[in-house]
């Protein structure tokens, strides 16, 4: 599911760059095809998450991402000061929670404004101009934030293996996500 979302997001970012950066546009051309791919990948972006809602484990993870504990504040403060300790976190650290909320909201805004630009008869001209404006600037922010997300993943091979195989080793989990186990105690143990 993460893989599908990542491919769709990657396709959106790459086609956006081709539509936007003159040098890429010059190298690729085929504007109509690139626009179509961008539109379709964008429209499909929320589908994997919506399908994921059928899974109890996925819903449990969404619950974890949604719940901010007092220790998350500590984690964020430490991270903002660029210090190593203390960084208390459950299965998801506070940075991951903030990222998840922000990117979900941003993706929905991109989807909404994108649809208004795609189906021009849906809204009057002022709304379309506004949508273009928001879509353009937010795309820049999304590009930077997603690049940051990928950068963090590159720096953490165990987390990447976790995303790929579904399991991580115990010493890593105890070091990076020390409150994961207590979290399991008060959450219903799903099929994870």
């Amino acid at each position, binding site marked *: 599911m993460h893989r599908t979302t990542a491919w769709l997001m990657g396709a959106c970012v790459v086609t956006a760059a081709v539509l936007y950066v003159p040098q890429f546009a010059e190298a690729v051309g085929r504007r109509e095809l690139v626009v179509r791919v961008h539109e379709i990948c964008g429209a499909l972006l929320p589908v994997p998450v919506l399908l994921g809602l059928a899974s109890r484990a996925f819903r449990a993870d969404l619950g974890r991402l949604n719940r901010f504990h007092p220790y998350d504040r500590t984690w964020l403060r430490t991270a903002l000061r660029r210090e190593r300790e203390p960084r208390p976190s459950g299965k998801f650290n506070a940075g991951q*929670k903030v990222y998840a*909320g922000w990117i979900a909201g941003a993706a929905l805004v991109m989807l909404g404004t994108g649809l208004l630009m795609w189906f021009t008869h849906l809204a009057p001209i002022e709304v379309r101009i*506004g949508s273009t404006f928001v879509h353009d600037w937010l795309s820049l922010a999304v590009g930077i934030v997603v690049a940051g997300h990928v950068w963090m993943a590159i720096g953490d091979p165990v987390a990447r293996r976790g995303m790929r195989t579904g399991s991580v080793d115990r010493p890593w989990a105890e070091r990076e996500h020390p409150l994961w186990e207590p979290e399991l105690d008060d959450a219903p143990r799903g099929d994870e």
Partner: protein
Amino acid sequence: MGRRLVLGMLGLGVAGVATARYVQGGLESFLGAAADKDPTGLTGLLPNGGGFRYYSVTSSVPDRSAADYRLTVDGLVTRPATYTLDALRALPQTRLVRDVQCVTGWRVPGTPFAGVQLSRLLDAAGVRPGAGAVRFTSFDGAYSESLTLEQARRDDVLIALSMQDKPVSHAHGGPVRLYVAPMYFYKSAKWLSGITVTQKVERGFWEERGYDIDAWVGRSNGREDHPTS
């Protein structure tokens, strides 16, 4: 809390759409000024950062030089003609400085174009009775455009040989492109290779895909930009 973040982003998005027309103007003039002083060219990549964007509908466009470039004028004319680049250069040149407005939103202020007035080529070819429109084709093999005869005879419609006071570069549609000053820039077909006088207006490449045929800036395509000419 995570939910609040999602909703917060949604709220910001809606607020952005609502206030865009106020924010955008200021941002555009600020970025335009910044772009003039920016040696890196990075501001050009920002939304509304000024400058032209490259659009091509095909994967690659052949290069045409002074040696192998040809412009044909045919259709409902008494004297069909083929022009070389030198022949076009030898004709009287007209220079216009107007804003360029793209239908996708970007605008480049005060851009000089120079070349031969289209009406001059039409007069030289002798338009036959019954003709009502002019069709333009491009040596990229795909692009096409059309104007009514009346529009084509306007004195701000050029067969442009120079843009920004330099020969039109390949990326900008060189060596020869159409320049229709009062209309959205998709009318100004790049890599111009054919002018055909026809009975009626035929839809061009983007017009087949929903764009307006009479593409007056500010009065078509559901947009309200300031007229350019």
